[in-house]
């Protein structure tokens, strides 16, 4: 099974986390539906929009981190998590 798509443990954890996020967002939406609102960004966003912005921003933070420094990626991961939480709350 692990051989078919050339899985590795880290990528499996990565996709597992994404899947959990999607499931979590779905449950959250069912429990209390998202209302479009405007925060720091110049446009109205829903919860899903803010998560997408956070995740995309996180991906680019990782890329910039790898391009700029040789330090471990855990730092970039930490910054990204903070960014995603901040985006969910204030963006």
């Amino acid at each position, binding site marked *: 099974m692990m*051989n078919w*798509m*050339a*899985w*590795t443990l*880290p*990528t499996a954890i*990565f*996709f597992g986390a994404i899947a959990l996020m999607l499931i979590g967002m779905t449950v959250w939406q069912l429990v209390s539906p998202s209302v479009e609102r*405007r925060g720091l960004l*110049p*446009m109205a966003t829903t919860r899903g929009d803010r998560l*997408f912005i956070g995740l*995309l921003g996180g*991906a*680019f933070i990782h*890329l910039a981190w*790898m*391009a700029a420094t*040789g330090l471990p*990626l855990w730092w970039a991961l930490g910054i990204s998590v903070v960014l995603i939480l901040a985006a969910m709350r204030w963006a």
Partner: protein
Amino acid sequence: MKKIENNRAWFLVVPVFVLVAFSAIVPLMTVVNYSVQDIFDADTRVFVGSEWYREILRDDGLQQALLRQFVFSFAILLIEIPLGIAIALAMPRRGARASLTLVVLALPLLIPWNVVGTIWQIFGRADIGLGGVLVTRLGIDYNYAANPIDAWATVLVMDVWHWTSLVALLCFSGLRAIPDAYFQAARIDGASNWAVFRFVQLPKLKNVLLISVLLRFMDSFMIYSEPFVLTGGGPGNSTTFLSQSLARLAVGQFDLGPAAAFSLIYFLIILLFCWLFFTTMMQLGRGPRP
């Protein structure tokens, strides 16, 4: 009558979901898996972490290809979008002339990419090509195979020739959809042609322009066959764009790990720009919020 409510209609979406899973999601996940491994053969793989990403991000050749790609994509957007709008505005609105114009405009869109490359390769030759000979007769020393500026000009003109029609046709359909009442109201108010364009036609074209910009950006960002056939990425590397660098890496050298990392970076850039264009253009039409 009592309505029966259930969510069984969702099952109708299952075939689409399965198709998309196997045509897009599974391959994309596999590419992510490849990008963190050094792959020797089907059974021999070594986990290398972020090594390929670091290598790709620091590769000078790829950075230059990325820069060229941005210059190319923004240049053709700057040319094709205004030109497409202008052509759509100038097109006859009804009758046989309108049909004829539509057919002529649609012709370049029907030609396969590699054939377009071949056509322009011959058309641009300074010894036998119609375009090349004409430019040479004008006293310009033109050779797209040896001079990077000539090669760039040829690739740009080729793309404009191939794809401006798409923008023009989309804008034409957008213009035709504006009810006459708007123009009558503008005429009563004594609006100038420019005012009609700026305040009636352009706002009504927002959606078709959004589609045009997204399609042209994505398509030009992935351009491969035309420059590959026309110049082969040369002279030197001057017209080597991202997808050609990727093909060299993946198919030429069979470096699946670095090629996968490269593909994902490529994908993220396209995703970012499409999101930016989409959000900005959706925002533009909304106006100030009450």
